[in-house]
């Protein structure tokens, strides 16, 4: 069921969608299983905790509920960009999708985000299932080729990859019968600057405000971790290539082609104009620093003169002037 997609569409996913789906799932899960009681007396709380934890344990053995929703965004040419999502009401036992709810929600979102339209739907779970196809077909009257975004909510600390997969539907002929099946597609994470900063802020709980030193440290730490990632990825590539050279790993020409095209793109920008612009920007920043220092100095001098005037004021009516050395 999960072969590679051949539709040629590129998908871009915004982090907001991922956080949305995760929040939806957490909400539904916590409403179903009673949390430890929020009473003030500690003994009551602990006894309740014990009770509820055992209940919680039982609940965890039941499969966690699946949540369903709709993803919206824009499609420009061959690029599909998923910006946002909202919840839907779907009953898996009767396989009925609440249409009026969907339309209502669509209307509401259209008012605030007039450019977005329904691109597909999402759900949680570990793998795409046959029953999902019904939901998929139900959405096909809104969008002829909807997407299916699947989030795996199981927290696996050893996992290195984002547990989000995007499926498309394709018509394949299996055993002589044309059937719609899900095929996986690749996607990239796309973001705007503001989104990136707030995700960073929440993910790493960066300090707000503070002295200039802490701000500088925060900025540089961010860049440092990014460069570390870059470095580790390059090492992996390097090891792979060395292995290929030695003959341990079979040569794969498509990968070699990709690597060589990447290498040929360096240096990234090399032209007279770039150097000029870059140096001009550099000089502008230095100029601003110079001006700021000027302002700082004149402010300090002003304060000094004020203090001098206050201390050695010869026109003061008070008796007893301080001695002037």
């Amino acid at each position, binding site marked *: 069921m999960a072969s590679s997609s051949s539709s040629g569409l590129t998908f871009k996913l915004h982090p907001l969608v991922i956080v949305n789906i995760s929040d939806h799932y957490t909400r539904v899960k916590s409403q179903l299983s009673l949390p430890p009681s929020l009473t003030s007396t500690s003994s009551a709380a602990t006894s309740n905790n014990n009770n509820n934890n055992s209940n919680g344990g039982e609940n965890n053995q039941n499969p966690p509920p699946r949540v369903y929703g709709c993803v919206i965004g824009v499609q420009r040419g061959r690029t599909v960009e998923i910006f946002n999502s909202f919840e839907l009401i779907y009953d898996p036992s009767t396989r009925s999708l609440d249409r009026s709810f969907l339309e209502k929600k669509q209307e509401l979102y259209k008012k605030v985000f007039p450019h977005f339209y329904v691109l597909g739907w999402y759900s949680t779970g570990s793998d795409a299932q046959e029953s999902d196809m019904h939901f998929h077909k139900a959405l096909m009257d809104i969008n002829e080729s909807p997407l299916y975004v699947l989030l795996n909510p199981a927290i696996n600390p050893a996992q290195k990859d984002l547990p989000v997969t995007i499926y498309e539907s394709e018509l394949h002929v299996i055993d002589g019968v044309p059937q719609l099946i899900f095929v996986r597609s690749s996607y990239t994470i796309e973001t705007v600057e503001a989104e990136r900063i707030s995700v960073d802020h929440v993910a790493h709980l960066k300090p707000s405000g503070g002295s200039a030193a802490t701000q500088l440290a925060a900025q540089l730490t961010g860049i440092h*971790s990014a460069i570390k990632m870059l470095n580790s990825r390059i090492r992996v590539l390097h090891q792979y290539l060395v292995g290929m050279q030695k003959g341990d790993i079979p040569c794969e020409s498509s990968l070699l082609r990709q690597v060589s095209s990447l290498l040929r793109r360096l240096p990234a920008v090399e032209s007279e104009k770039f150097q000029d612009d870059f140096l001009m920007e550099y000089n502008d920043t230095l100029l601003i620093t110079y001006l700021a220092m000027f302002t700082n100095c004149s402010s300090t001098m002003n304060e000094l003169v004020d203090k001098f005037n206050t201390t050695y004021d010869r026109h003061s009516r008070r008796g007893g002037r301080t001695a002037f050395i």
Partner: protein
Amino acid sequence: MDSAIAQKTWELENNILTVETPDPSSDSIFYYDEAAQAKFQQEKPWANDPHYFKRVKISALALLKMVVHARSGGTIEVMGLMQGKTDGDAIIVMDAFALPVEGTETRVNAQADAYEYMVDYSQTNKQAGRLENVVGWYHSHPGYGCWLSGIDVSTQMLNQQFQEPFLAVVIDPTRTVSAGKVEIGAFRTYPEGYKPPDDPISEYQTIPLNKIEDFGVHCKQYYALDITYFKSSLDCHLLDLLWNKYWVNTLSSSPLLGNGDYVAGQISDLAEKLEQAENQLAHSRIGPLGPPRKKEESQLAKITRDSAKITLEQVHGLMSQVIKDILFNSVRQSSRSQNDQSGPEPMIET
């Protein structure tokens, strides 16, 4: 990994209060206890104490939505509502949604237009399983800081009379992008005629000249609340994994290019303030030198702080540009060939 050690050392030195990594049992904050909330509504402990609510907890989702919405408005103010619940002296914001209204700075009760939208949205949300009520509103001040203007203060006072508990949140998306950290403030107004017992020292922020009067007149009528953020265990996990794809964006972001207009505006505003300060200082030399005036910083000192802030942001932006230049452009200078990956092209998963 020594980067982890370095981060821990830095966090210790700067007294970063790390929220302990939430485990599944602490996701209890997401549980909506209808009975407890209804009881709290009845008791109204805030009616007697205007300073009752002191803290705000914002969920990761709400923050993301609000910032993205505020940024999408560009230079136009946008507004929306927040949903959540209360917890003792804290207001918890679980979610936020945008309202199809623009430009609240000219209308006191812009929410009248959006009532139908709000009712529809709340109804659909309750059906979909989000049971919380509206606990506040947010709007954006693109480029001029997080504070409540005169109109905002009157709107919020009205809200606090009829829709308690209610919170006002202001976001500045332009400053967020320029400074690299989220500019957000949460406020509640004092009731009419109430004098706050002490003068809380708020964090200084620079206000443009054309708004500074509006700020000064009303700044004593409201107080700011502490903001903390929370996220679920699944959120934590996902955000960690997201970093594996995200580092490319961090490296390729260029704040200098995006915010050129804003910086130019700030500098020209600073120049005007400087002229004003010059006039003020020229006159004050004649006046008496007796009265103590060190409570308020002098105009010039404020300007110095502003200029330092602008410069700092510029320098940060330039630093990232220089780093990128060294990483990706200096291949010709290095003796060993390096298999550098070119900047903004992420690796496609195959």
